């Protein structure tokens, strides 16, 4: 039985996703088992009797063989049960859902910045290869690519907040605005706009702009670099010569021909960028005290809250994998050569 090619492709990607998810969870499971801390003690405390200890031991299924434990683990994961946080005594999943929108906000704005500034930069650099626009773009890209992002964030805070006062400081919102806006989407800007609280909107924007720019610089550097590379590759192809032979104006050759071929590849790059920003925000959030999932994982780490750390890892990991797979799928659907 032959499946229609598109369906087959989607199934292929989904099964890949599944396998990778299993691999991901296997690794976190292993890491969890390697924990120096005794999971039973963590629940019952040091002074519990042997009876209680044994009871909880059985409850946790620690007497069963490893693969059964893994399957139980997987089952729990798929139900959304990531365990309970030692720090907050809340289910980890709930905590994560609370913190996730902040990171999403940051990563999305940063990616948009990367796209709308990075792509034109990359094209410009490729078209003027070897001349000064190319050099400038390459330098900006290289610095964005080579600078430690947390350091860049700190320097930016120093300059734009402390010395120049152009933007607000660390944190997502000034303290006295806290709690005024109903968190319906969790994304402050949208929530504030929807309730018409324009002061808060402004304030949120002022807080968002610096961390998003820093994260965005990283995205921009990567996107510009890849765009440049792809464009150079395309511009050396025969069909570009054909387009010129036809008498096409150079602008159309660049955007109508070369760029159209690059667009398809950029989809994957943008997906990759977004995914890596989810991760890159860990450090940025620390510097800007941004209450996102990166902060959550870092704080949990310092409090030895392993459930939270592993839960966070799984969530971020799954998103990471998911986004990559999605952009891969999109690429296959859009490129006529593979269709």
């Amino acid at each position: 039985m032959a499946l229609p090619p598109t369906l087959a492709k989607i199934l292929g990607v989904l099964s890949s996703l599944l396998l990778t998810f299993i691999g991901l969870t296997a690794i976190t499971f292993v890491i969890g088992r390697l924990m120096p801390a005794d999971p039973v003690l963590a629940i019952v405390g040091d002074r519990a009797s042997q009876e209680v200890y044994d009871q909880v031991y059985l409850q946790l299924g620690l007497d069963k063989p490893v693969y059964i434990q893994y399957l139980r683990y997987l089952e729990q994961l798929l139900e959304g049960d990531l365990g309970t946080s030692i720090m907050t005594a809340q289910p980890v999943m709930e905590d994560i859902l609370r913190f996730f929108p902040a990171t999403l906000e940051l990563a999305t704005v940063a990616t948009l910045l990367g796209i709308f500034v990075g792509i034109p930069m990359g094209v410009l650099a490729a078209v003027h290869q070897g001349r000064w626009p190319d050099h400038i773009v390459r330098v900006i890209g290289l610095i964005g690519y080579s600078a430690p992002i947390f350091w860049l964030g700190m320097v930016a805070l120093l300059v734009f907040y402390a010395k120049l006062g152009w933007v607000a400081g660390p944190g997502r919102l000034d303290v006295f605005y806290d709690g005024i806006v109903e968190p319906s989407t969790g994304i402050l800007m949208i929530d504030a706009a929807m309730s018409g609280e324009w002061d808060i909107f402004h304030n949120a924007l002022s807080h968002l702009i610096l961390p998003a720019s820093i994260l965005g610089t990283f995205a921009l550097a990567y996107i510009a670099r890849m765009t440049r590379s792809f464009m150079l590759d395309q511009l050396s192809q025969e069909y570009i010569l054909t387009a010129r032979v036809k008498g096409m104006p150079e602008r159309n050759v660049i955007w109508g021909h070369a760029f159209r071929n690059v667009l398809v590849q950029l989809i994957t790059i943008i997906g990759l960028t977004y995914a890596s920003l989810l991760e890159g925000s860990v450090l940025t959030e620390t510097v800007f005290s941004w209450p996102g999932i990166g902060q959550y994982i870092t704080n949990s780490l310092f409090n030895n809250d392993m459930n939270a750390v592993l839960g966070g890892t799984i969530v971020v990991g799954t998103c990471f994998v998911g986004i990559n797979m999605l952009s891969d799928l999109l690429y296959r659907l859009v490129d006529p050569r593979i269709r």
Partner: protein
Amino acid sequence: MTDSPLLSVEDLHVTYNTPTGLVRAVSGVSFELGREKLGIVGESGSGKSQTGRAILGLTAAGGRVSAKRLDFKGTNLLNANQRTLRQIRGGGISMIMQDPKYSLNPVMTVGSQIEEALLIHNPTSKRVARERSLEMLRAVKIRQPERVYKAYPHEVSGGMGQRIMIAMMMIPEPDIIIADEPTSALDVTVQLQVLAVLDDMINARGMGLIFISHDLNLIASFCDRILIMYDGRVVEQCTAADLDRAQHPYTQGLVNCLPRLDGSHEELPVLKRDPAWRTPPGAAR
């Protein structure tokens, strides 16, 4: 047909700067082209493709072009501005490249690419452009023009791809067409088909043709006049009929290399290359 030549080339030079020194791709090439079929024969590195590109002003970056004369129908191509050059490209002089797998844009349909070629020089409505494109596809003997029109380049065979190339390059009605190894990437049987199509169109429109190839046999049978190039220079110019009476040792060597059904060679002679051929005068005409 016309008295003055369409294209006049005098003392054309194309040089490249490389880390290991100066490379002279074309050194002092001169010829004229009327409404006739001119073949340029040479081995790899002889400069024949570079000559073609230089005529169109599309030499690769890093190359420098100079000449005493490079005229097309009275326009000096050397100091023409970009706008003039763009009008001439496609509308006056066009070029067919070797491999349609690479010379056609992979993410655009065949039809849109042909239309594009037309619309650059004759802006008309989409409907007219589509009709003319389908017409052209029929003219190059493609049997299901509507289907091919909607297809992507990777979905058509090599021979069809070349005919699409021909259609695309002929649709703006240029006076001269440069064919750079148009059949080298094709199977032998398909080669003849494509050449037949090319021949028909050129004859019907009274165009000039510059046929670039490494295949002397092919050129001898297809073209009226032949230019033999070696190491960036023209070592011989003659008519196809006079090939047997070629004077330059390189040409003679090439002719001798061609296996003949009626010949009685035990061993095919090996082409000897005399370093003396690299120095100009005497040989070029």
